[in-house]
Structure formats: structure tokens, C-alpha cells
């Protein structure tokens, strides 16, 4: 019975999101990887919309129940499905194949697919066996889920002084200002289960991990990476150890942050590539979702803007974007002079990042396998293509993300968290899947340039 409940809890947002993306898109399968993209991005969109609906329900003063939450969303999903079905009946059938592989490449493709499947099976079993484990999960995330589930509505969480003054009208936890998206997904799981269960309620983390893997594969395919290269990208993302930990020990918002940010960036890149309504709508929706998953999501969403500028004004976009980065840094320096506080971090001019500890975290420990070696190598070897029209938006977004991390760990009180190996890795996790995408596409650009140059060599020599 629990398995069925978990399935229903996962399928409703999936259905809603996929149907929405299909309605927005003109054809069912318009390019390779479309199915993977739609299923992956569909879950993320649907899960976010589900929580938006729960906020509306709570705001209207109606108590949460499975039917109050599920029925209207199922009706919307059914209506969207009907539109898609009707439209595609009258259109010629297209097929999403695109597996242009043979021999060893095909074997490798399926080996990696099986590896990914095995990994998610292991992570799923672990996640569904263990009571809520990691620290912040029970001091600042599931705290809200428990209260909102039991009360049947969203109750306010406040800081200690406000709690004392509220005389029981408000609740307290370690981070009362955190956004409600992830706790509401836990509430949704419990509503379907019919009871509070802080093990099974974490199903959305597993779904988000799967969705992220699918969007990376589908996104890379749609950005003209080969099937094998795209599967390599998906494999790298699915096997990132720290991302795996955040599925197995579910309860933090960092993996969802990474999934929403990566998928928003990929949707933007898809829109830049072909200017389809569905992609810009998806990018906007998921960028908004970033801000509602975790507070740093505001900054992550902002790093998408330079990518848009570079694509919209190709001639001067890169200069505008990097001038914007410089301006932002100047503003931060100015704010730091006034001891400005932002999302509980003090801006400071005492620049002293712990480079040794950062290098240990990125290059020596097991958090990222060899991701950062690969990303640096790809950036160096593909440097002549990084600002080409095809790569410039992604390069700018990743540069914006790295600058953000640099500022956070170099100029705020968060620099302390590098040396104790805590927040540094979790903040990096937000960007890591997009760095995988960048590595694959940059390497592909280098490979094309290199192969074109050296394919001619024998003929020239002859």
C-alpha cells in the first residue's frame, strides 16, 4: 500500500509537468533527447507547481487533504493531456530516436545506462530505509513539514524573539526564513501516505535525482551533443558522490537547488538555440522555482541573466555580461564597507579564502571524483571556442556561478566553511551538474576543432 502511495505521490506532479511541457511544445518529439528532457524537466516543473497550489490552498484557509491537493491538479493534467492528444492525432507522427551509435559505442551507452539504473536502485533502497538523518533536515526543513502536515496548513515560522512574543501563534526552527517548497513536497508525500513518516516522505529527492539525470541527457542531446557524449554527461551527474549522498540521506535542499538551477539553465540554452516558447516558459518557471527552493536560489537565478544577455546581443553581450560581473563585485565591495548582512552571511572585506582546503575538497577528496580536473582541462583546451556563439551563454552562466561561489567563500563569513569542509561542498553542488554540462559541451567543441585540424594533416603532408 505504501509503495502505491509513493507511486501516486510521484506520478501526479510528473503527469502535470510533462503534460504542461507537451502543451507548450509544438511536436511530441522534435529533436533527439526530447523524451528524456520532457520527463525530467516535467517532474521538476510539476513538483514546483504542486507546492504553489498547496500554498494557494493554505492561503485560502482550506485544510490540506489528498483530494484538495490532488483533484484540481489531476483535472488540469487531464485537460492538458487531452489537448496534447487531440493535437498530435492530427499531426504526422514523429519518432524520438537519435541513437546514432554502433558497436562499442552502443555497448558503452547501455553499460552506463545500467550503471545509472543500479545507482538509483541502491540510493532508493537506502533512502527508503533510514529515518531522517542529516542535521539541517531535522532542524530547519522537516520541522516545517511536520507542523504543516499535522495542522493541515502553512503556519508561520519565526526567530526566537518573535516566537516568544507570538504566544503560540508562530513556530520556531533553526532557519525560519527558508522557503517552503521542499517541506511542502514532504507534506504532500505524507498526505498520500495518510500518516507522518519521515522516511518515506523523502521520495521527491529520489525523483529529483532521476529528473536531473534525465534533463542532463535530454538537454545535452538537444544541444547537439552525440548520444554517447550525452550519456556520459548523465552518467557523470548521476554518479557524483555528493549528489548521491543528498539522495540517500535526503532532507537538504541542495540537490533540488542543483536540479532546478541546472534545468533552468538548460532550458535557457535550448531557447537560445531554437527560440521555442516551451523552453523560455520552462526556463522562467524553473528560475522562479530556484528562488523558492533555497535562499541562494535568488543569486543562482540571477546568474542566468548574463547568459540571456550574451545570447540576445551577440555582438556586445559578452562585454556587457562581464561589465555586469565587475559592477556587481564593486557593489558588493561597497556593501561590505557597511558590514552588510545578506541571508545570514556578513559581507566583509577581509579576503582570506582557505585555498588549500578548497583544493583538498575539489581535487583530493571523494566529493567530485575527477570533475574539476576535467572541467579545467576542457576549459583550457576549448578556450578558443568558449566565447563562440554556441558556447558563450553557457560559459557566461558558469562564470557567473563561479564568481558567486568565489564571492561567498572569499568575502563573507562563509569562508569559515571551507576549512571545516561543510557548506563549501553543498554550495558547490548547486553548480556541479551544470559544470558537467559545460565540460561535455566544451570538450565536444575542442574535439571538433582538433579533429578538423588533424584530419587534414595526412592529406596536406601527402
Amino acid at each position, binding site marked *: 500500500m505504501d509503495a502505491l502511495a509513493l507511486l501516486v505521490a510521484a506520478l501526479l506532479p510528473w503527469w502535470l509537468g510533462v503534460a504542461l511541457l507537451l502543451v507548450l511544445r509544438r511536436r511530441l518529439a522534435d529533436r533527439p533527447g526530447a523524451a528524456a528532457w520532457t520527463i525530467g524537466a516535467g517532474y521538476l516543473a510539476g513538483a514546483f507547481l504542486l507546492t504553489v497550489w498547496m500554498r494557494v490552498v493554505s492561503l485560502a484557509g482550506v485544510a490540506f487533504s489528498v483530494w484538495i491537493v490532488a483533484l484540481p491538479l489531476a483535472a488540469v493534467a487531464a485537460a492538458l493531456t487531452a489537448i496534447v492528444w487531440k493535437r498530435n492525432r492530427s499531426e504526422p507522427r514523429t519518432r524520438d530516436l537519435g541513437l546514432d551509435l554502433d558497436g562499442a559505442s552502443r555497448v558503452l551507452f547501455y553499460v552506463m545506462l545500467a550503471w545509472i539504473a543500479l545507482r538509483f536502485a541502491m540510493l532508493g533502497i537506502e533512502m527508503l*530505509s533510514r529515518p531522517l*538523518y*542529516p*542535521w539541517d533536515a531535522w532542524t530547519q526543513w522537516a520541522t516545517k513539514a511536520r507542523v504543516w502536515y499535522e*495542522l493541515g496548513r502553512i503556519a508561520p515560522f519565526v526567530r526566537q524573539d518573535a516566537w516568544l512574543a507570538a504566544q503560540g501563534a508562530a513556530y520556531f*526552527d533553526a532557519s525560519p526564513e527558508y522557503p517552503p517548497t521542499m517541506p511542502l513536497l514532504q507534506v504532500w508525500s505524507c498526505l498520500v501516505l495518510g500518516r507522518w513518516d519521515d*522516511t518515506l516522505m523523502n521520495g521527491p529527492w529520489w525523483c529529483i535525482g532521476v529528473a536531473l539525470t534525465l534533463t542532463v541527457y535530454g538537454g545535452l542531446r538537444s544541444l547537439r551533443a552525440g548520444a554517447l557524449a550525452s550519456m556520459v554527461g548523465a552518467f*557523470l551527474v548521476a554518479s557524483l558522490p555528493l549528489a548521491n549522498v543528498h539522495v540517500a540521506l535526503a532532507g537538504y535542499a541542495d540537490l533540488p537547488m542543483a536540479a532546478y538551477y541546472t534545468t533552468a539553465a538548460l532550458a535557457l540554452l535550448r531557447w537560445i538555440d531554437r527560440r521555442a516558447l516551451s523552453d523560455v516558459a520552462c526556463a522562467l518557471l524553473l528560475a522562479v522555482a530556484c528562488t523558492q527552493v533555497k535562499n541562494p536560489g535568488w543569486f543562482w537565478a540571477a546568474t542566468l541573466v548574463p547568459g540571456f544577455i550574451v545570447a540576445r546581443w551577440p555582438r556586445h553581450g559578452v562585454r556587457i555580461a562581464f561589465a555586469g560581473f565587475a559592477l556587481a563585485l564593486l557593489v558588493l565591495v561597497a556593501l561590505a564597507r557597511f558590514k552588510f548582512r545578506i541571508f545570514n552571511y556578513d559581507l566583509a572585506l577581509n579576503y582570506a579564502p582557505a585555498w588549500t582546503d578548497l583544493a583538498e575538497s575539489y581535487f583530493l*577528496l571523494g566529493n567530485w571524483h575527477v570533475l574539476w580536473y576535467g572541467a579545467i582541462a576542457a576549459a583550457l583546451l576549448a578556450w578558443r571556442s568558449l566565447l563562440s556563439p554556441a558556447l558563450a551563454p553557457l560559459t557566461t552562466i558558469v562564470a557567473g556561478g563561479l564568481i558567486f561561489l568565489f564571492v561567498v567563500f572569499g568575502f563573507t563569513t562563509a569562508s569559515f566553511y571551507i576549512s571545516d569542509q561543510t557548506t563549501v561542498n*553543498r554550495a558547490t553542488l548547486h553548480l556541479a551538474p551544470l559544470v558537467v554540462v559545460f565540460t561535455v559541451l566544451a570538450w565536444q567543441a575542442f574535439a571538433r576543432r582538433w579533429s578538423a585540424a588533424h584530419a587534414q594533416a595526412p592529406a596536406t603532408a601527402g
Partner: protein
Amino acid sequence: MSALAWFAAAFVACVAVYLVASVPGAWFPSATTQSYGARALAAVAGAGTLDGDAIAITAVDASGTAVIRANTDFRSADYPIVAWTGFGFAEDADVRFLWRTDYAPSKINSVPVSVVAGRLAPIVLAKNADWVGRITGIALAVRGPIAEPPHIVGVEVKPGGAKGQIADRFREWFAYEPWSGSSINTVTGGAEVQELPLPTLLVIALVIAAAGWGALAWRKHRLAALPAAIAALFVVAWALLDAQWAANLAHQLADTRARYGGKDWRERHLAAEDGPLFAFVEKARAKLPATPVRVFVVADAAYFRGRGAYHLYPHNVLFDPFRDTLPKASSLKPGDYLLVYHRRGLQYNAEEKKLRIEGGDPISAEAVLVEPGAALLKVL
């Protein structure tokens, strides 16, 4: 020669270079490793008590030092490596390895011991001029103050050698890394203390293999395939690391299954690390009203404050997530509850029904539930 063969050869070459640079003493020694467990160790300064399979250093002496010693008798030339196993050492702890020899029995020699992630790095003494003759005693000195007791599991003296070095590195790379409080923040990838990180070694081997394969391809005019070859090697290096990670996950799955398998939600919580606290909170919840009330949660340890509060929701709990503080008496109103779990500084007079918080003015309260080290009080 395929890129993969180049990679394998480069890896072997890297390991060989490492051995040349790192093997102390003989390459093929006849001596075998000697181990001294916690029961073979004794505190000769400060205080140490057996805690499971380890000695917990609980206090320092008047000079601010704790010393844990083992009596030994081995030839220094046969054992150039000393590896202490322990945990819970502060990153800035002043830890030194001490030894005495039959060559200069009255002299106590010492070298500093590095602390990495709370553990002790091995010490190589092959080139230390005082590591001579027979070693008649070894010890570990920790200078205080000691906030949380560090633990010493034991010490091994090792002959080193090529085989020993390789075995040690493999043990470090493939050591089981179970979930801990820090897992959500960082993955070590094997043992917490590693002399030669596997990711770096694999990348160096990859670079050498790419150069070798590229040079050969250049001569054969096949250089166009170089990016594909490097990409393939990158994926192989990644997969090797991931295989280690997958094996660790499988081990963890077995552990989790052994602990929680076949249990329902409540039984899982009782089997968890904070099972006794969960059991107490369950009893407390039964005494609390059905509708949410204000509950102040206090405990010495942040873990118990946070977990106690978490188990009490949807009651309206207040706890200090960061500091071990007590609520002001003035903030407690009639009808509020106070859940105390392993917290000093509170006095309750059952006859007078008075609660005194850290010497402040007494307030009226009723003990609703009392167990050793834990209580639920209602403010009257």
C-alpha cells in the same frame, strides 16, 4: 597499444615512482607489522579510560599533558613507520609521538604528529637520527586543554617495504566510509587520512597515458582521435573511482538493512542513534495535551536539543540550535512545558513544586514525567 593499455602502464609507473620516493628502509623486509590495541596501552600522565575498543583521554595532568604508553621491544631499523589509530582529535591539537631506546635509555625522543580530519597521520622515522637501537617504549602525548575526549584505538609499527606501502594505500583507498554527521557535507573517498589520494594518482596516470598515446598517434597520423581517447580515459578514471564509491554504498546498504530492515517507522526511530531520546519524547508526548502547546527543550548537547524538539513537533517547541542556553524564567508562562534531557543547571524541588534555573528566582512547576537524566515539567 590502446589508450587503455597506456593508462594501465602509466598507473603502474606512477605507483612505482611513488614507491621509490616513499618506501622507508628495505624494499622487501622480513619483519611483520606489530599491533598494540587499546588494552596494551596505559595512561602514564593525565587520565584515560577504556571506551569500547579505544582509550578515551579524559584529562591532562598538572603540566597540561596526557601521555598514553605502550611497552615495546623491537629493532628500530626493522620498523620505520609508526601509525597511531585514533579519532576525535582537534585540528589544532598539540600531539607528539614519544619513544625511548636501549641506546639512550634516559632520553625521551619526540616528533610532532599531524592531525587530519580528527585522526592521526602515520609517522615515518627512517631518517630520524634518534630512531636507533631497540625501541623499548612508545607513547603518544596530547597537550590540553581537552574539550571533547580524543580516542586512541591502538598503534601499529610497520616495516614498510614495497608490499606494505601498496597494501596500506589500497587499504586507505578502499576503507569503508559509513554515514556520519559530516557525510552530508563531504565525501572522503576511503580512509580519512590518505597519503596518496587516488583521484590525483589517476589524473597523473591519465595525463601520462594521453601524452604517450598522442605521441604514438602523431607518428601514425592518427592524432584526430586524441580527444576521443582522452575522453575515454577520463570516463575510465571516473568509473574506477565510482566503483570504489559504489562498493562503499553497497556496504552501507547492508549496514542500514541490518539496523532498520523489517522495522516500521516507530521501530526504526527506536533503533536510531537517538533511540533512548525518541522513547522518552514518546512518553512525554503522551503526557502533553492533544493540541499543540509551547515546549522549551534544553539539553547540554546541540544534537539532543535539536532532535528532542524535532520529535516533539507539532507542539510549539523552542530550542537553541547553536548554544547551550537555558530559557529565562520570565519567558516561561503558566501552561508552558520544559523538556530537560541530560542538562545540568536546573534544580527542581518536588515537594514545593519549584523550579530554579541556574540560580535564578524559583518558578512554580510540576514534574509531569521524570526519568534518569530527563524530565518533563509543566509551568504552573
